[in-house]
């Protein structure tokens, strides 16, 4: 599916406090910029169909 529009400001205001992160006013524009860039990159990945059988390849071997 097409990914929903990403609103970095709303996302930041919701998620940062939940994670205990304080974003100073001077940092906000930079953090929102990188959130937007990351969301765009994630959109490319999320839009690519993968079969349910394709697993990640974790290195951990018990």
């Amino acid at each position, binding site marked *: 599916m097409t990914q929903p529009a990403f609103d970095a400001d709303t996302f930041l205001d919701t998620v940062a406090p939940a994670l205990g992160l304080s974003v100073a006013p001077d940092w906000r524009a930079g953090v*929102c910029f990188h959130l937007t860039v990351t969301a765009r990159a994630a959109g490319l*990945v999320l839009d690519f169909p993968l079969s349910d059988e*394709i697993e990640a*390849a974790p290195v951990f071997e018990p």
Partner: protein
Amino acid sequence: MQHINPLQGTATEIAQMVQRGEVSADDMARLSLAAIEAIDPRINAVTDITAERALAEAEAIDAAHARGEPLPPLAGVPYAVKNLYDIEGLPTRAGSRINRERPAATADAALVSRLKAAGALLVGALNMGEYAYDFTGENAHDGACRNPHDPARMAGGSSSGSGAAVAAGMVPFALASDTNGSIRVPSSFCGTFGLKPTFGRFSRAGTFPFVASLDHLGPLARSAEDLALLYDVLAGHDPADPASARKAAPPVTPVLERGAEGLRLAIAGDWFRRNAFPEATAAVETVAAALGITREVVLPEAERARASAYVISTSEGAALHLERLQTRAADFDPDTRDRFLAGAMVPAAWANKAQRFRTWFREAVKSVFETVDVIIAPATPCFAPEIGQKTFLLDGVEMPVRPNIGVYTQPLSFIGLPVVAAPLWLEDAGLPIAVQVIAAPWREDLALRVAHELERRGTAQAPIALIPA
């Protein structure tokens, strides 16, 4: 080649001179320490000088030589390491302010131990982008590392000091790390050879991680022959690194002279032809002409691979620092803080999909390597930008410099392919730029053979910089 100053030799040449008794290990340690003292104030590549250790290691080599004992392969060769490698007695700062409060390391990193056993002399630790989240070589705490070929320009990151120290002739080789391009980018900007081996090939034990699922270690040097020698010393399984592979690593030095003979070569198309400045295109075309390459192959969905590496890096990299971001965000370098804060908020589903795509991409690229042995691609989209430059034009679109220098390196490290960066000096160019010589997993031998061929033909070269006073 004979050099007036033996420090200007390659690691291979220096080791041979020491073996023959033409210079002592003590000579080499002192020459390297003197070069650092004379040159580094203009370059800022070195953050810690380990003079006492280097001289003690040299003394042990010279004593063994005097007793007539056979010398190990790197006896008397000075080197330095990116400051995310543990060095016994020093805190491992990893380019950060926060980490220098850590206690001193109680043991050397695994690769430093291997080099010590091989007789190399550790002269210092090297500047890097904070926590390795960087392609520029800028660092708010230690100052920007400068490009020896033009000190107004970036050395490239995050292994900035490794590229600069080698290009400036302070050491013949250095160790570094590469998660998304951090060996290949400084190799391109500083004009050194660099090896990012297959993921799992070199032990990462005793180094400070950036993104554990993508981190690689490797060397930078001034010849492909040196990279082969270092590969032969450094490769091998280590149970102390969970990602270390149990794979045989036959020595590459004995097969290096085979060069490109009999290999199926191709240029990387599609994604690797987009976003390039003229110099990146010219570098690939120069290599294609030198090796007679007419074929082009496509690594499918490379753009998505790059996006996946981006999402994993920011998410996993930031997760490692969550507590530090919660309590000490102001102590981060402003250029990495914003990225780490954003990365800490990435939803797990995004990163997980990216990890699953890694499996898909690995299989797709494996199919490509059924019909080709070595692929050539640009290492960086451009020559080294000026220090402080924030944006550049990629295919006519203004983009931030810092995250986009790695457009060509990221898709490859994403699936752990071995890559050699081979530096070129284009006609009338005042700066170097590298190509990536890419092989299938575990075939470092093929990438090193082709890089050696380029060096033998004079297409690739890594001259020491003439640094303005």
